[in-house]
């Protein structure tokens, strides 16, 4: 689906990524983990061609990421951004409809088919009852769903997410995570997310890419391969115990207590 080959990038003298190589397979959920400043968000920007790499490249089926036009790229990949303030009071339905711009930027508005897509997406993300509400009156959890709905309305094979659950409470985090898991399994969406939540990543991801603080790849593989005490100590400098919770068949990362 996406081939990252010898990717290097630096801001000025500061190298962010060096010689990064990996493939993303269609229909997988890949989580990128790593300490702050490891270049995770930069990697997401490079993947969608928003930055020009210093070395190597990101190959999509249709071409090299930073050479594709924005309009073309927006038909391949949708981005779910971190929450930001909404100064303009668009309705939820109008907001989700903006996702249709890439496929059809006609001055006469979106087609009936796309309207149907918007309605379906509203239902899928469980915000149909909010359709006529203004986005500036929504809670963080609701707004994140609206942004997810907009990304889905773009109808792209790939979805990129940048710490989308970091500002949400446990309930909203779980429901968004479940939705992502279902999108991946049921609709074969390819999802690449940046996250700090290791346990959640282990629960829903097929694979995890762990970067260290210099942006070098520490490990890439299944959650149980990557999330070992040694790898986590190397990436974050924290001593942890990694255990399997037999009740839920889930991986638990327990840091050494502070006191």
């Amino acid at each position, binding site marked *: 689906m996406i081939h990252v080959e010898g990717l290097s990038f630096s801001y000025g003298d500061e190298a962010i990524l060096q010689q990064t190589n990996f493939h993303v397979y269609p229909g997988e959920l890949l989580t990128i983990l790593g300490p702050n400043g490891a270049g995770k968000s930069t990697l997401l920007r490079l993947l*969608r061609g*928003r930055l020009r790499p210093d070395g190597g490249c990101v190959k999509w089926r249709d071409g090299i990421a930073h050479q594709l*036009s*924005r*309009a073309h*790229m*927006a*038909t391949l990949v*949708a*981005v779910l*951004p971190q929450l*930001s303030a909404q*100064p*303009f*009071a*668009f*309705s939820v339905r*109008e907001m989700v409809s*903006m*996702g249709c*711009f*890439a496929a059809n*930027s006609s*001055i006469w*508005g979106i087609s009936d088919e796309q309207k149907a897509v918007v309605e379906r997406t509203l239902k899928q993300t469980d915000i149909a009852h909010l359709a006529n509400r203004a986005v500036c009156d929504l809670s963080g959890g609701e707004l994140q769903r609206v942004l997810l709905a*907009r990304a889905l309305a*773009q109808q792209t094979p790939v979805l990129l997410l940048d710490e989308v659950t970091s500002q949400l409470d446990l309930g909203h985090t779980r429901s968004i995570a479940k939705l992502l898991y279902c999108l991946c399994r049921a609709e074969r969406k390819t999802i690449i997310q940046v996250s700090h939540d290791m346990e959640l990543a282990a629960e829903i991801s097929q694979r995890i890419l762990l970067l260290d603080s210099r942006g070098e790849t520490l490990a890439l593989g299944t959650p149980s391969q990557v999330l070992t005490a040694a790898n986590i100590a190397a990436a974050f400098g924290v001593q942890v115990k990694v255990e399997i919770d037999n009740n839920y068949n889930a991986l638990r990362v327990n840091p050494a207590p502070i006191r």
Partner: protein
Amino acid sequence: MDNVKQFSRFSWVLWLVFALLLSLLIGLSCGTVSIPLRELLNVLFGSASDGGVSLNSVVIHKIRLPRVLFAALVGAALSVSGASFQAVLRNPLADPYILGVSGGAALGSVVACYGDNNTLILAGVMVGSLASALLLFLLWLAPSDSVRNAVFWLAGNLANVRADWLPWGYVFSSIAFLLLWRKARVLDLFTQGEDCAADLGLDVGRARMQVFAVAGVLVAIAVSMAGLVGFVGLVIPHVVRLLWGPGHARLLPASALAGAAFLVLADALSRTVLAPAELPVGVVTALIGAPFFLYLLRLRGQR
């Protein structure tokens, strides 16, 4: 049922056209000499009954009609460009003059190719202050009569109607309006921030340059003919957004109509309060607009 829905979707057009017509009638009838409505309609639409040309007929056709059409044009141009700038700068409280006065708007659109919005606004402020320094220098040089004229212009004023320019003003403004209206969905995307807009498939740099250039032309048309009429471009789009939502397919035409109606009324007021003397219309719009702006800022602070 469907018809009712259709009607409510387009009811804003009816309201605004009605408001505009009403304000045009008020603008035609108010002034140093007040002309009653019946006579006004008679002069406009009736046949000339007394054979000759009445004084009122001359006043209406030669003075007031160009004047109200002029006010409508300036009000519409400022409101539409204000709405566009607010979208691209992602700031509902931006003013069309934010890029520095007229010349600054043109320069700003060139700068827009290189920098982000903050640099653009800073550049606007710089161009603006450079322009005001030049202006003060010129005022200092000028004989007292021209100073008075210049001050009048700076305050924004509709007294210098050039009836022969008016059709050209309408033609160019209409073209600029249509170009911006075509970009309604693009302006919608801009409100999401440039980063999001790019991810939604917009070539942000190019689109921003196009919008700034066209909206800059609109501001330039208004400024070159009427001086600095403040607050129209800021307040009108804001009110329209509160009433009918922020979608630009509706916001732009609604702002044009509302801005036209508002400036025609403000102009009528400026001609009557101190008649036979005339206030610069910019004073009237500022007296209405500034308190409203403060109210909006407070409203925002509470959020």
